[in-house]
């Protein structure tokens, strides 16, 4: 790697040097949560790194064995708290598969729109915080301005700004109001304008490119060996998106959208800039999906009639198991549920995308400098709530 060649250590016998042990975190502005990375360093170069997770472990999966299927939905909100619509969706689809029911058509379309809006919101945070990690403090505020609009839009049907608990097994909690779809379309127009500005300010900035291109290159074999998914995988050129390849919602089949992949535009394929650019373009693809969704929104009920009783009587699925995976903003989220015929699951396990993506970190950091370490962690876009659950 470029860094290693430039900075080979001085092996003079008369100079005594010691390895520096540095802790990045758990209290650190750039570790995206409570993550501790033990670094061993030679001057500015990292020689080895070890991730220490578990600071945010809240026993969600164990709690899942003691609450009902419906009651677990808010817990899924809080795993990856930045994309809670998507988490709710994955969980609801899993329970629906276990029960053998399907949400009505309108609910499916609205689910898709809400999931894509949440994808934009989540990628906006990734964009804003990545700017701060690299040193540009301003794009964060612009990103949050857009995020404010999304949160106001999603607050109207669900009642909350971030932990929505809106997509529930069987459909949705309630229908959206009459003007919601028009307001969403208005937001899409506004967002397109702003997206162009983000690119002028950060994406095409020479300093930003120099800080992120050729850094943290993830070759394709490493992606497969470590189970990395989402923009991390697509940044390395692998064109795989569950929305297109394993559509878990019927409307994803009906709408047109591209799957952006990294192309090594400014450096090696699979560097930080590629992953960042994949996220930026995914925001635009989500806008496309939302526009088509709002225009094609069918009428009807938003909750399966048979499932409406689940609020009063807890669900009791027949014994069995189900695994459903969805394309979260961070990668592939999967829920594996085993039912023994009781009101609570026997086991509910979450396959969190950030957990698998984070396992790449210990392999990517050695040989880089601390400034690059921050850039690499930011480009993986992890949320510790999901890593630790």
């Amino acid at each position, binding site marked *: 790697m470029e860094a290693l060649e430039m900075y080979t250590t001085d092996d003079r016998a008369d100079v005594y040097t010691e390895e520096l042990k540095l802790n990045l975190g758990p209290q650190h502005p750039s570790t995206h949560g409570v993550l501790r990375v033990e670094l061993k360093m030679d001057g500015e170069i990292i020689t080895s790194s070890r991730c220490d997770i578990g600071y945010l472990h809240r026993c969600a999966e164990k709690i899942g064995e003691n609450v009902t299927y419906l009651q677990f939905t808010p817990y899924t909100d809080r795993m990856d708290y930045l994309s809670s619509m998507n988490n709710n969706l994955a969980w609801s689809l899993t329970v629906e598969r276990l029960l053998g029911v399907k949400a009505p058509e309108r609910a499916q379309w609205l689910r898709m729109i809400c999931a894509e809006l949440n994808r934009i919101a989540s990628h906006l945070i990734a964009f804003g915080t990545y700017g701060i990690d690299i040193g540009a403090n*301003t794009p964060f505020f612009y990103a949050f301005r857009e995020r404010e609009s999304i949160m106001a839009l999603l607050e109207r049907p669900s009642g909350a700004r971030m932990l929505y608990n809106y997509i529930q097994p069987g459909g949705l909690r309630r229908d959206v109001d009459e003007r919601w779809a028009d307001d969403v379309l208005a937001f899409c127009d506004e967002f397109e304008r702003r997206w162009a500005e983000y690119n002028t300010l950060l994406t095409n900035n020479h300093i930003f490119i120099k800080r992120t291109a050729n850094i943290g290159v993830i070759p394709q074999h490493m992606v497969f060996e470590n189970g990395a998914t989402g923009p991390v995988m697509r940044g390395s050129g692998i064109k795989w998106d569950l929305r297109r390849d394993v559509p878990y919602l019927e409307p994803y089949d009906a709408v047109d959208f591209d799957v952006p992949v990294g192309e090594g535009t400014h450096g090696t394929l699979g560097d930080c800039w590629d992953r960042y650019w994949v996220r930026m373009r995914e925001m635009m693809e989500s806008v496309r999906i939302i526009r088509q969704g709002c225009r094609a929104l069918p009428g009807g009920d938003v909750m399966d009639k048979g499932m409406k009783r689940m609020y009063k009587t807890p669900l009791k699925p027949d014994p069995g198991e189900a695994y459903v995976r969805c394309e979260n903003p961070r990668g592939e989220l999967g829920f594996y549920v085993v039912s023994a015929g009781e009101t609570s699951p026997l086991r509910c396990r979450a396959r969190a995308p950030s957990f698998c993506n984070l396992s790449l970190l210990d392999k990517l950091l050695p040989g880089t400098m601390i400034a690059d370490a921050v850039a690499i962690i930011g480009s993986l876009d992890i949320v510790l709530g999901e890593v630790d659950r």
Partner: protein
Amino acid sequence: MGSVREYFSNIANGLGSTVKGMGVTLRHFTSEPPITVQYPRETKPIPPTYRGLHILEQDKCIDCHLCAKACPVDCIEIEATHHGRTLDWHKFTIDYKKCIFCEFCIPPCPVDCIHMTSEFELATDDPNGMVEDLLTWTGLRPEDQAKLEGKAGGKGAGAAEAKPAAPAGGGDVRSRVAAMLAKKKAEKEG
């Protein structure tokens, strides 16, 4: 010679992207209005579906405990003695240290007596004060009162008005609510 070209393109890209970026920030400095809402002097409009503090229509409640069973964190405690068809209430509290505002207590109610309002200003420096006794107060803002009386409509109501509402009256939640209750009582009797 490639590195010479790279050298000059670095200069050009560096200067060019910097100037373009500065154009964006200058545009924001001069013509974009700040989006900060100066809370608590101003507030954002809150939609009617907002999941805030609960209210209970005590007269309607039949002590069925369906809301308490639906709660994922078991934060609702209810106690009442039945005398035939009437109830002697002892306790109906929600522990807001535990409540996650998920709204699962609302749909099971068979008589539609428990609701969530737009009240969210819960901050207190007394942790015991976080256990709210729903029997002695019903946290109300004018729009919540109207919603209760069916004026604003139920599910699927339109977006909230654009006018930002200042918190009704001063003081904390309890005194605001006590004032509203007294007013309601006076109206009923008068």
